[in-house]
């Protein structure tokens, strides 16, 4: 058996719940999460199979005051693992919990975290989208009339693909937000 394991998994910035479940699932099968690097290579080492809760927080302010931020989690029994793409990774064995426990205890704070992700990650993307991509695409479309073969220009296709990728991103965020709000009610 190899000493460690690497797996590629792609989670978008809104998939932190799926990512948490994935890491817990691996730990329960005897694979302890050790590190992750771009673009989504997750590294594990063998361990005793155990039920361990993994949690992700997105808090820029916490990262700016890291010592006291991590102290609060440590006081509550959460082991800090690493930081990746603005997210802080924590874990805590289920055996140390009285009941199911997470790093958030109410939906208001879960929604606050989603808003921090939105401000930290989506707003910059939206700016690029509105200030660069959309204008560029329309310039491409007006400058080169259809007859002049806008479709044959690779730059046109590049912008079009980017616009579509961005749109998918925005729609996914909207769906995620909508689901969350529905679940709250």
């Amino acid at each position, binding site marked *: 058996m190899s000493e460690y394991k690497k797996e590629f998994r792609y989670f978008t910035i809104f998939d932190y719940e799926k990512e948490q479940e994935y890491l817990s699932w691996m730990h329960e099968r005897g694979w302890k999460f050790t590190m992750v690097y771009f673009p989504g290579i997750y590294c594990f080492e063998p361990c005793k199979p155990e039920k361990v809760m993994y*949690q992700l*927080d997105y*808090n820029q*302010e*916490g990262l700016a005051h890291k*010592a*006291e*931020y991590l*102290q*609060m*989690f440590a*006081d*509550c029994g*959460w082991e800090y693992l690493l930081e990746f793409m603005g997210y802080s990774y924590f874990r805590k064995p289920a055996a140390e919990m*009285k009941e199911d*426990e*997470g*790093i*958030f*205890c*109410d939906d*208001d*704070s879960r929604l*606050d*975290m989603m808003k921090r992700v939105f401000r930290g990650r989506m707003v910059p993307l939206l700016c690029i989208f509105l200030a660069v991509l959309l204008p560029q695409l329309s310039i491409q479309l007006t400058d080169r009339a259809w007859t002049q073969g806008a479709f044959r220009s690779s730059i046109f296709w590049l912008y079009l693909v980017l616009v579509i990728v961005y749109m998918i991103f925005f729609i996914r965020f909207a769906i995620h937000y909508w689901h969350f709000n529905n679940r709250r009610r």
Partner: protein
Amino acid sequence: MDAHIKKVYVPMTETGFYILLCLRMPNHGYGIIQRVEAMTDGEIRLAPGTMYGSLSKMEKDGLIAFVQEQDKRKIYQITKLGEEVLALEMKRIKRLYRSVEEAQQ
């Protein structure tokens, strides 16, 4: 008290209420978590992500103020504005309690 504070904090979350209640005495986040657990016989256990987020939000909104740092833990205390908000909440909760009592008679 401006409209923003009223909109965000009246009514407030259980977490917010317990933070203000506990910070009438200077304390840090984990200290509040422990006190609330003791006060409610272990029924309410506030989580660190929620606590950290609420404390920074309340500090920004001027409901609580930073006092000093001790062993990497920030100690806060309630402000005048925080006391006003807490008083409003207490009034609201007392009214709820009275209604519950009346309904059960």
